């Protein structure tokens, strides 16, 4: 029940958060230099054309008036149409955001599978060869730019071995999982390196801390100590970091989406910002804010569960 009220409270807090984000993003995108017409017309932008297009879009009105119209439409659930793509923002977001969610979820899963066991191995073999080998190889993964890793994976597993398609996105769910494996692996490499390093340090810290000695003294079996104390306590900061990193990935997997030709939200966002497609930037930011907030809510719940001392 406590959990339920906690979740309710957090969902209620979402409303002022989203309102704040909406105001900031509205102001900032409208204050960016340039407008949708000159963004797309470039050299061919003639004053008369730009003025006519801006008037059609209602961009010639004073900013406060535009903001009021925007708020009124949002309240009615209307996020408008994309200026350049001429389709509704809602349908664009519904098309593109799930792709990014899938990609991020897969990357997160792969990263956990790689990072957690290897962090244990490294921590329990501190200073030995296996520890150094694990840390060294994760460091290489961390230091390679995403596009570089992506192209190498595409060349080897796509073009040469033909195990995976060279980029793109399938039609059925199965096909999509298949298409998303290499990009998810690409994202997972640096994510897992970050998690592995954090978890390794955390395990070492917990093992060294007094309370493990107490538990030991009380005569608990090693395995129990492992799961009850070491794993739980070590995972607290890792879960935290995991949530932050996944939150960043949701909005920022642009390069991966570009290299692997995945029609995700990151690419839509970057194209819309460059095109000054205000309605899309606003709608997508709002949708991302909901997803990110929910991700953090989830990590907070996991964290509370891991650490009963943090009473809610």
């Amino acid at each position, binding site marked *: 029940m406590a959990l339920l009220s906690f979740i309710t409270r957090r969902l209620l807090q979402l409303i002022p958060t989203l309102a704040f984000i909406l105001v900031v993003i509205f102001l900032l995108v409208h204050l*960016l*230099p*340039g*407008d949708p017409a*000159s*963004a*797309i*017309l*470039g*050299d*061919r*932008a*003639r*004053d008369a*054309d*730009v003025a*006519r297009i801006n008037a*059609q879009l209602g961009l010639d009105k004073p900013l406060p008036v535009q903001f009021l119209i925007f708020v009124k439409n949002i309240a009615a659930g209307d996020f408008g*149409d994309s200026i*350049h*793509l*001429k*389709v509704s923002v809602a349908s*664009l977001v519904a*098309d*593109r955001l799930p792709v990014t969610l899938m990609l991020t979820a897969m990357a997160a899963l792969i990263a956990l599978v790689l990072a957690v066991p290897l962090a244990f191995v490294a921590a329990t073999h501190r200073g030995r060869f296996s520890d150094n080998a694990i840390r060294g190889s994760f460091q290489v993964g961390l230091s390679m730019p995403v*596009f570089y890793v992506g*192209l190498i994976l*595409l*060349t080897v597993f*796509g*073009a040469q071995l*033909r195990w995976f*398609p*060279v*980029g*793109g*996105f399938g039609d059925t769910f199965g096909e999509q999982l298949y298409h998303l494996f290499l990009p998810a692996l690409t994202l997972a490499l640096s994510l897992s390196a970050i998690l592995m390093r954090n978890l390794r340090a955390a395990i070492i810290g917990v093992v060294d801390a007094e309370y493990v000695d107490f538990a030991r003294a009380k005569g608990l079996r090693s395995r129990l100590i492992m799961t009850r104390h070491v794993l739980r306590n070590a995972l607290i900061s890792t879960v935290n970091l995991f949530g932050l990193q996944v939150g960043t990935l949701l909005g920022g997997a642009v390069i991966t989406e*570009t*290299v*692997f*030709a995945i*029609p995700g939200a990151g*690419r*839509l966002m970057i194209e819309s910002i*460059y*095109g*000054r497609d205000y309605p899309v930037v606003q709608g997508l930011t709002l949708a991302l804010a909901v997803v990110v907030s929910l991700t953090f809510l989830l990590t907070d719940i996991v964290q509370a569960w891991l650490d009963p001392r943090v009473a809610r």
Partner: protein
Amino acid sequence: MKNVIRSALAAALLLGASQAALAIERGGILHYGRYADSLFLDPVLNDANVDIWILSNLYDTLILPTDDGKGLKPGLATKWKVADDGLSVDLTLRDGIEFSDGSKITPADVVWSLKRAADPKNGIWNFLLESVKDVVANGDNGVTIKLKHPDPTILAALTVFNSAIMPEKQFEAAPGKTDADKAKAFAEHPVGSGPFVLKSWQRGSTMELVKNEHYWAKGEDGKPLPYLDGVTFELLPDDATRILKLQSGEIDGAELIPYARVAELKQADGIDMELFPSTRVADIIMNVRPKVGGKDNPLSNPKVRQALNYAANKQAIIGIVTHGVGTPMSSYMSSATPLHVGKGAVYPYDLAKAKELMKEAGFENGFSTSILVLAGSQDEIGTATALQQMWSQIGVKLELQQVDNATRTQKYRDGDFDMRAGAWTDDIADPNEITSYYVYSPNIQAVHSGWKSDEADKLFEQSQREIDHKKRAEEYARIQEIYNSSGPTIPLYETPYPVALSKKVHGFLQIPLGNNIFRATWIDKK
């Protein structure tokens, strides 16, 4: 020895290829990798190359451009005649032409389409049809275009995407109050007049075109075009991925190959690295206003501009940026543009002359200036970095300012810049489009440079009504002379369209205006 074998092999392959070219094969779907997705497939209301360059596959025009992009050949119209006074054009429509839904293409559709295209309230391309006063049907299969004044470019304008023919009834039946709203709805499931029809479009991913069963043109085998069952565009924004996907055989063609990889792909097995002639030019545009940001502007001095031109080693830039794919510009317009004049680089590299000109202009010790480049554009950053080094030799300190496209456009529309990198591709087989933007100051102040020549402005206005071809050529020769010697640009290079195709693909064409033409493309299935 190895080379001998290789060239013998190459000769054999070539022979094989030319024999295969005789036996056209029908059917199959061509997968083509594009760098960016289309935005809006309306011939009149679109505003970008990503739409323009594929629109001719969906909508046919009355007249078609020839393969070299300069001439005219029959399209939906079989015959055309400009009246002696130059004030009207009579066109005869082809018999039995149909839209992709099987309905007849009537003179009423043509009248409606051209009027919509010429309406100054619609889109940004109506200036190409500025001379159109009225369009009227003329019997069952004729159309007459009435002009406000003689227009030497009217026939070329009828080949341009915006004068494509659309079905009036189906368009007007689309939901929506305004033309723009109807266009949105119609563009979702367009009924067209071109060789292909839009079947599906997953934005940001794939676009499927299928054969239009009602298309009029016949292939070499006497049966209707197109040969292909369909074309599928796959959006592959990353250059390297696009190439890999071609190499792995998952797609049959890939556009916009980076220049750096052209030589490598020429050697690659199973790939035809095509360099289609284009009208694309790249240059630097200078702000020539006497004061910029309240300070005196050295670039307002024509001698300084000439000095910068002489000190820019274009051949080196062509080597560094285009990896030898480009060629020097001999005028502000591309050499593939009709009425172009000029031979060799406009300003051949001459450091001594540049230093002398700087001295004459009173800038012996140079000055500091800046250039706006598109953030992330390797070509522009590469060019600017090379210029930075080259101009340091005449004491000019060049600062690079990387900004995104919209910011850059805003800055030069405000006149708030020193220099910027520019590029241009013609949309019409005539020099008038580039000239109206680059030279004719009332339009956009000569690409927002603030440059102005009364003589060039007057010549341009004359040439827009000059139907004597020879006189018009003379006018254009003089405009180019003025602009190339005192204008606000540093012409850098012309580049072709680099397209890589599987060796199985035949008959694909990208004309100098950029249009991708798939109507006579076929795939060798062996």
